[in-house]
């Protein structure tokens, strides 16, 4: 489903973020990308979202080179990817409900579909009664759940989660990870970038370990080893 081919990414003047990255993610897989801060996890996900361009190599999303997509059609790619970020990236002037609905509006869904799906998804993430709160009125864990609801709402083929638990306490962290596992069980591919040891050991699925921009380990049932 996703293929990284000989990816190099250098941030000027000479910070090597990624060096010769090659890997593939299959449909319905749950892949964790582990590494210290600055090891290139976020860059990897940004390349897939076409938020950044590689200096060399290609990134394929279902046989399409994402960096050859005309910026005009990038929304089509992004609507197939649900992204969850460490800093949530919610729209501050929209309520929880509207934040989730926004992704559907952008997709061009009808009002009926929005009215039907948004409460359902908010219910899945356990925020049904906080629908009318603004992000500033939610706790970190709640914000992240809104972000996940937003990422889920248009039934993406894949969820990219970049340190989704980075700002959360251990209790809420497990909460979010369970949610991601559940989403994966329903058939959505999940790519999770994290540096949380407990999270990785809890999940017990495929782990890619990044170190200084290189993949040093790729295990089917990985553990956190750095």
């Amino acid at each position: 489903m996703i293929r990284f081919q000989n990816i190099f990414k250098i941030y000027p003047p000479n910070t090597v973020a990624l060096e010769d990255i090659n890997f593939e993610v299959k449909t319905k897989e749950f892949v964790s990308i582990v590494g210290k801060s600055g090891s290139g996890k976020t860059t990897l996900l940004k390349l897939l979202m076409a938020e950044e361009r590689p200096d060399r190599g290609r990134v394929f999303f279902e046989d399409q080179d994402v960096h050859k997509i005309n910026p005009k059609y990038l929304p089509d790619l992004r609507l197939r990817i649900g992204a969850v970020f460490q800093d949530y990236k919610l729209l501050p002037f929209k309520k929880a409900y509207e934040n989730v609905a926004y992704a559907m509006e952008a997709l061009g869904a009808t009002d009926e579909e929005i009215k039907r799906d948004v409460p359902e998804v908010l219910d899945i993430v356990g925020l049904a009664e906080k629908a009318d709160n603004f992000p500033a009125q939610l706790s970190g864990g709640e914000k992240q759940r809104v972000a996940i609801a937003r990422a889920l709402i248009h039934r993406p083929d894949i969820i990219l989660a970049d340190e989704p638990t980075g700002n959360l306490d251990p209790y809420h962290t497990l909460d979010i990870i369970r949610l991601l596992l559940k989403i994966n069980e329903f058939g959505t591919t999940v790519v999770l970038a994290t540096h949380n040891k407990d999270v990785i050991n809890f999940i017990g699925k495929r782990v890619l370990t990044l170190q200084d921009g290189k993949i040093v380990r790729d295990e089917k049932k990985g553990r956190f080893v750095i």
Partner: protein
Amino acid sequence: MPKVLSRVIKSGWKSFCRDGGLSAANIFIMVMTIFLITSLFLFKDFSGFLVSNIEEKVDISVYFKQEALEEDVLKAKEEIEDLSQVTAVTYVSPEEALGEFSQRHKDDPIIMASLEELGINPFPASLNIKAPDPAKYGEIAEFIEGSDFYNLIDKIDYYQRKPAIEKIFSFTSNINKGGIIFSAILVIVAILIAFNTIRLAIYSSREEIKVQRLVGASNSFIRGPFWVQGILIGFFAALICLLLFALICWIFDSRLDFLFPGFSLFKVFTSNFWLIFFIQLVSGIAIGVISSSIATKRYLKV
């Protein structure tokens, strides 16, 4: 498409309301800009009035010799009237001139006494000539000098008045030019300020725009609400400005009428009401939309 449009409008309206403080600040700046643009329009009208008012007061007089007969003078009048440069020629007979003079100085016994002492009417017949354009008086004077009734003429006061007429002429054209340049500079400054205010407002939303891009919204779907906000700001600013102008014109109407009889600011306002409102609305909305377009453009490159 109508679905998208209604969503964009709704979302723009919501952000406009929720971010009330910022919207109010933007409207305030926009009011000042539109105010200046409207002033430029009204100033053009006012200076036009002032200029024509001054120019109307300018004329030249041709004084005939004492021995000139009334019919000769009237014949000369007809000839001058035929000139294309001339708007009006008035004949002032010696009797009328004397009557006017005594009327003006009736409270001054010395002058009246000396007039009586003189025994005869010292005033010659004269013609008052008006032209629509002060620049034409030279040509008229030249024509009279070359005419066959020139030997009946005592003097033409054009040459005494020439410096004054030319001064007025350059003064009025300077009022026009200077006023327009000055207001144009003010308007440009105001537009720049309005543009920058909106740009700063959108700068604070740059992260939001980026997120919207990453969530998969298309450019027009992200920009639309900003355009709607620009339109709303322009619209409300135009409304406020219209009310403000109505008030100002109404308050200063009587004062200006006192200073410049015949000029009614309020009348200029009411007779041009729709034009003024149109200018205000279009300039407000145009500045709002163009500023938001330019400001959002750079954040959409994700």
